[in-house]
């Protein structure tokens, strides 16, 4: 790799560089500066700068860090990776803001430095994962993302559940990443390369043993399935989500999932797709019945998520199951194996970012004040705290997918893609799932509004800045439900892969 291409490549990864600098800054501040109250704000500024670079990087469509003897790079900086970088960074910014508000983490003043170092590390891993096209890079990015998240989920070490969550997460995580590594080595053995582009070129031109290839693909799916908590690799999710601090739970449910999804999309598209037909459908290599496998995973993920959520009394756990269900819907978008499907996933993710984080934020505020996450302790809160109640209602309705909220638009585009691909029966299952999900989302509204407030029900007044934050999250959810042109234009613009 000559120095010129290195400089070009470094120019392409400015968001990642910013986060790396941020990581060191946070450590330095923590070590040498007594007052660690500024650390969250430094993190916030770092993330914002990185976000600006990610947005300015939208037009890029290039290989970065190509090795001397290869035309393919370790990273592909293309619009779709920038789109998911924006999602990850927005989610991180919101989560840092949540952390500033949260009482839960505030109690750990002394360990603030650690907390933000770990968050920055996770963000770095996610950013690399959105672009990675080489399995070495992919694996490193994935571990960079996973290791801090194991620690963060156990961050409230004084709480029993937190330790349990962390341990469970580590064990599941290391097993699945081990299996994935094995799958990667099989794939390397078959194709002689770790680069997705090279693998694609090899598979296009050579005939290979489909059985081994299929096995390696399934093993890699285990690793991805773990990250996006798809059935049957979801077992860790409810416990980890319940045991972790809410801020981390919300972070895992959006940002970490986004990174997993873009990796899955890139894995299928770059590794196994031979161009795109005029109609937008992918000419996928006939290795494997991708569609059936993905549909089965997606449908079982959403069904299990929704039905398990029905019985939860702990709100955080309920939201955990609901996020499993949402992963199922988004997987359906990928299962269509077309540009339309990916567009639907992107629209879905953008909306999901706001509605899911919004729901977590309000639940966090309530849980901080009520000192409980049990739904029965939330009786009548909507009546005593009208604005927070209203906001939670909007977020939950959007999660259900009812108009006029943006959640409806995201589901609508998903169903567009499904009907367009003639997957009617899948669309029917997904729609019936929506009806099931209505029950548990509305159950929260029932407790919030239909039950009379008791003596114990607190009147929660938040500061203007918190209300502003909530309003900022509400606006896209309501606006894009009524006028979704900008959202769709943006997603469409970003729906573009690097093709070598």
């Amino acid at each position, binding site marked *: 790799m000559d120095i010129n291409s290195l400089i070009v490549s470094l120019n392409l990864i400015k968001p990642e560089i910013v986060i790396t600098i941020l990581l060191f800054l946070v450590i330095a501040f923590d070590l040498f500066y007594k007052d660690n109250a500024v650390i969250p704000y430094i993190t916030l500024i770092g993330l914002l700068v990185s976000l600006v670079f990610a947005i300015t990087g939208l037009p890029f469509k290039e290989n970065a860090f190509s090795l001397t003897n290869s035309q393919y790079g370790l990273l592909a900086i293309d619009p779709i990776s920038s789109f998911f970088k924006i999602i990850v960074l927005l989610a991180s910014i919101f989560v840092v803001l949540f952390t500033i508000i949260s009482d839960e983490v505030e109690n750990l003043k002394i360990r603030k430095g650690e907390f933000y170092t770990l968050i920055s590390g996770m963000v770095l891993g996610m950013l690399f994962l959105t672009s990675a096209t080489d399995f070495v890079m992919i694996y490193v990015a994935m571990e960079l993302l996973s290791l801090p998240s194991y620690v963060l989920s156990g961050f409230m070490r004084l709480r029993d559940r937190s330790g349990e969550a962390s341990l469970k997460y580590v064990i599941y995580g290391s097993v699945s990443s081990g299996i994935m590594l094995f799958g990667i080595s099989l794939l390397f053995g078959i194709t002689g390369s770790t680069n997705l582009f090279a693998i694609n070129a090899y598979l296009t031109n050579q005939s290979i043993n489909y059985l081994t290839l299929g096995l390696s693909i399934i093993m890699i799916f285990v690793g991805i399935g773990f990250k996006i908590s798809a059935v049957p690799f979801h077992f860790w999710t409810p416990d980890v989500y319940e045991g972790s601090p809410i801020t981390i739970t919300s972070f895992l449910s959006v940002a970490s999932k986004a990174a997993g999804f873009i990796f899955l999309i890139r894995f299928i598209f770059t590794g196994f797709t031979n161009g*795109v037909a005029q109609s937008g459908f992918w000419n996928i290599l006939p290795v494997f019945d991708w569609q059936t496998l993905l549909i089965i995973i997606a449908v079982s993920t959403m069904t299990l998520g929704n039905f398990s959520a029905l019985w939860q009394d702990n709100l955080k756990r309920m939201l955990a199951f609901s996020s499993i269900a949402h992963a199922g819907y988004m997987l359906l978008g990928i299962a269509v194996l077309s540009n339309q499907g990916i567009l639907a996933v992107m629209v879905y993710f953008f909306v999901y970012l706001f509605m899911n984080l919004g729901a977590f934020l309000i639940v966090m505020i309530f849980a901080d004040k009520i000192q409980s996450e049990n739904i029965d302790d939330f009786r009548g809160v909507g009546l005593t705290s009208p604005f927070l109640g209203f906001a939670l209602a909007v977020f939950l309705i959007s999660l259900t997918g009812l108009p006029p909220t943006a959640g409806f638009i995201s589901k609508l585009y998903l*169903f*567009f893609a499904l009907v367009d691909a003639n997957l009617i029966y899948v669309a029917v299952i997904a729609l019936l799932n929506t009806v099931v999900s209505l*029950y548990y989302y509305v159950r929260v509204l029932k407790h919030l*509004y239909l039950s009379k407030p008791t003596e114990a029900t607190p009147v929660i007044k938040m500061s203007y800045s918190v209300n502003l934050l909530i309003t900022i999250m509400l606006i896209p959810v309501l606006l894009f439900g009524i006028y979704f042109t900008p959202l769709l234009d943006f997603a469409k613009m970003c729906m573009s892969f690097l093709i070598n």
Partner: protein
Amino acid sequence: MEGFPILTLITFLPVLGMIFILLIPKESKFQIKLTSLVMVALQLVLAGIMMSQFNYNAGGVFEQSSFQFVEKVKWIEIPGVSWLGTVKIDYFLGVDGISMPMVLLTAFVSLIALISSWKIDKSVKGYFALFLLLDTGMMGVFVSLDFFLFYVFWELMLLPMYFLIGIWGGPRKEYAAIKFFIYTLFGSVFMLLVMIGLYFSTTETLTNGSKVFTFNLLAMMDKTNFTADGILSPFNPHNLRFIAYIALFVGFAIKIPMFPFHTWLPDAHVEAPTPISVILAGVLLKMGTYGLLRISYPIFPEITRELMWYIALFGAINIVYGALCAMAQKDFKKLIAYSSVSHMGYVLLGMASLTSVGINGAIFQMFNHGTITAMLFLIVGVVYDRAHTRGIEDFGGLASKLPVYTGFVTVAFFAAIGLPGMSGFISEAFVFVGAFSVPAIRILTVVSTLGIVLGAGYMLWTLQRIFFGKFNEKWSELTDLDTREYVMLIPLTIIIIFLGVYPSAMLNIMNTSVNVLAKFVNETSFLLN
């Protein structure tokens, strides 16, 4: 009036009121109520203006040029790329003779329900805000001519309704509210799927000559707009139009509510507060039958013809089954709820005849049922407010104590039975004439007439048990109607009697459009040969 967006105004006026209300502090209950009243009254005034400007000779139904008060502006337009067609959704409103009676009904019943809400004292601000949002949803459904818009308004009503039943309802309100919500959403997800299927099967030609997929309901009624391979296109030999029709029908049937999807209705009615029962029975149920006439009939005419016998069958079941259930009720309000099931059966029967007389009767029955049942629920509310019980057996001989009230009750009951001179008689007669003229459903029509006898049976029996016989001394404290109740009941009585004596006032509005619709459904074939 040309160019004045009267339909936008009539639809969104309540939302405007809702915004005002949210700005009023919650202690100023009177101001909140007054704002709502002004908005809903203005809505009725606008509906009156619309009626005065209405052209009785314009057909509508499937051609945009003969719709009235049309507003069509671009709402969403996203230019396409190679793999994704242009997305274009219009904000498209308009009325014809089928929707005009429904607009009048919505405006009128909303006002009555609002007056009836005057006594609400719990979370006044929330109640009226939700009430107005509900009003916008209802009005929007009746004036939309774009499927997407229709669907948005259709779903917009669910949430306010859930809260209105769930917060201000009776003892089992939570159960009733969620049952209503889930039932309706279950129906509407199928509607969503049909909507998407139709979208991918219908194209509209833009001014620059390019063809784009469309949600325009009128475009879906023209065979030439269908694509060659859309899943709901008649040109596609493997199309799913039949299944889509059933799915759409189920979506609407739940709202009507048609047997066997009617079980949410008695629960919702019994638990809902009086004004919400009035809205529910007066307007919401009509949306199901309206949807059939506006969407299912003209978009799937060949399947409608094929299935008319089944529609009539379900109509007949509704009529007889509803009446039998009503007869067995001990709760006054539940009895009225089941009588609604029975009366909506007439609408289905009239529609199933596919004759203009039958459909005229059906739409007229929709309007009349709206006014008569609204009155019946108000009547139940009056006695419940005073006695705090609705058990029919608890009363007796009230006529001697509450003579004026009994007078109104008698009018409403006779109207519900279909006594000549009242509006219900005309519409039921039209329904039977229309249905009887079609040999295929003649037997079902004959069976349905049983409903009239049963109707007279349960209504008169109820009248006897509550108002005649020995006076129950327990109720000696009861007072007769107050001014507010007069204000609600008198206009309803006037309309019921006026339309009974001079039905042309309403029939003339709908007649042209109904003729067009009946002709369209009978003669249009989307089949290939």
